[in-house]
């Protein structure tokens, strides 16, 4: 099967998963009767759409970051973006529990951006050298995660909501959250895809890319910026869904190859698929219990990642 065909085949798979998301849940809709329409239009449909968009954002962010730093371990989680958003959200939830939920999204996005600014500032002298970016990212990530833990330990009464958020969950996500995600993704998706060719050049190494006319540092900074914005808005809406940004690009590379013009859309679709499937499983496997999607992305993601590593000799 050609790589192009596989890319297109992802679309019907995604559509099927979305339909499953509307069909499955804690209740069998055919037995509900009067409230079925509300459940479909106000709970399931927006939640499916939020899962698709947030997953796409995370998958794309992962592919962009891996392209920039040319390292298979890179992901938004590793560069501290997720941890920055997590720290901001935890601080808001712990210090202002009565704050309307709508404030959490801009707060968490700001946290992710601040973490990124800190990363760029710390890496400023070295032309965004990939290895250095990763090392600084790991340190930053650990520091931000430690601050988050400290908040959680020192404020044990206010942490229930924060813990759910830090696991990553689509519980209660609906139209207001979708309206947050949609404009950002409409803006960022085309920009990202337009960057595909330059990312392919970067993959050849800095000197070769420079020789072929790519502005290496500028491309790298732009890709990083786009990745952070995508990851920050997705994480802000759904919490820190782990492994999506790491697994989706690897899976995409296995399916459609390493050329970014196919890799980027495939990563987006696979990220969307992963989050959607995790959420559907979380809310329909053991009703009335709703498990946070973040637990399931890790549960599916981690072993699958190990499997991929055995298949894969590219790195």
């Amino acid at each position: 099967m050609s790589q192009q065909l596989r890319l297109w085949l992802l679309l019907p798979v995604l559509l099927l998963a979305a339909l499953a998301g509307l069909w499955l849940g804690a209740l069998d809709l055919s037995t509900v009767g009067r409230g079925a329409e509300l459940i479909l239009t106000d709970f399931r449909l927006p939640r499916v759409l939020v899962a698709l968009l947030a997953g796409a954002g995370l998958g794309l962010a992962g592919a962009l970051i891996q392209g920039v730093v040319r390292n298979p371990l890179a992901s938004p989680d590793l560069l501290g973006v997720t941890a920055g958003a997590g720290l901001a959200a935890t601080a808001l939830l712990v210090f202002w529990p009565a704050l309307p939920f709508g404030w959490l999204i801009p707060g968490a996005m700001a946290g992710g951006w601040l973490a990124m600014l800190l990363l760029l500032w710390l890496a400023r002298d070295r032309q965004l050298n990939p290895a250095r970016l990763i090392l600084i990212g790991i340190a930053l990530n650990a520091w931000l995660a430690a601050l988050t833990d400290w908040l959680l330990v020192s404020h044990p009464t206010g942490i229930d909501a924060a813990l759910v958020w830090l696991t990553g969950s689509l519980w209660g996500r609906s139209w207001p959250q979708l309206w947050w995600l949609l404009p950002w993704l409409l803006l960022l998706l085309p920009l990202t895809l337009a960057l595909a060719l330059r990312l392919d050049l970067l993959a050849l190494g800095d000197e070769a890319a420079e020789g072929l006319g790519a502005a290496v540092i500028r491309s790298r900074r732009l890709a990083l910026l786009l990745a952070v914005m995508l990851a920050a808005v997705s994480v802000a809406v759904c919490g820190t869904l782990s492994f999506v940004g790491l697994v989706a690009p690897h899976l995409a590379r296995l399916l459609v190859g390493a050329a970014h013009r196919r890799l980027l859309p495939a990563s987006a679709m696979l990220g969307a698929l992963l989050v959607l499937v995790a959420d559907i499983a979380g809310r329909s496997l053991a009703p009335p219990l709703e498990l946070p999607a973040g637990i399931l992305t890790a549960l599916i993601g981690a072993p699958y990642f190990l499997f991929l590593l055995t298949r894969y000799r590219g790195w």
Partner: protein
Amino acid sequence: MFPRLLYGLLLTMIVGAAQARQIADAGEGLTIEGQPQRVVVLEYSFLDAVVLAGLSPVGIADDNNPARILPALRERLADYRSVGLRSQPSLELIASLQPDLIIADLNRHQAVYPALQQIAPTLLLPSRGIEYSTVLDELLTIGQALGREAQLQARLAEHERIMDRYRETLARDESLLFAVAGAGGMTVHGPKAFASGVMRRLGLRTATPEQAEQAYIKVSFEQFAYLNPDWLLLGDYQAAQGGAEFFLRWQRHPLWSHLSAVDKRQLRRVSPYSWSLARGLLGAEQIAADLQEQLR
């Protein structure tokens, strides 16, 4: 004659509609009329007030584990539907129960507050870490929301009499400490915690420093030894699995046998579900009854 009756009826309907109650809560406030019949409760601590008002909720976020509900409450419940975890109750299930009042927790359910309001009038109240006095205030707030305030006020007066009676037999000059053991270690209930407030109400002294800001305080063995209560009331969430692992280690510590509670053989096991989760009148009365039995 007949039209006058009709007018009278109309008048009472209009007056009735005008009597929609405004109740201040931790959210945007609740506007409700009449007496709600189908109530959904999303935290154990609100269950008490609803049951004492003579209602049985149609839905409870009970973590799908009814054993966590205070037995005195559980036996008074009619059939209800579990709506799942307290941290993530299922909105679909709540909506399908067609409630006319939802009682939600400020901390856990802020994220779905607008969605809950869309399903039914929603009362948003703090729950985790609330003090005993707040529990009593919330009881009356829930009474107002249910349109059954008088009933709860009467029950509250009875509660005060019950607690006074316990107080006479319990008061003593030894320090007490309630702590819960779990996978994460030892958590001491500070002066602001519900159980500590109940113990003070009963004329007892708690071993925690009065200035502590937090309701729940994680402590190490050293900090615990420093608190050194005369009585330790331990609620072990892992009792069914053979006891919390760290606590078994603590018992082998050289200083363990020098602790006052150990030395005086005044370590008692109590149910963490009754003492910590069941923040309500019946929960407080259960604590008092447990103390009377244990402090003998």
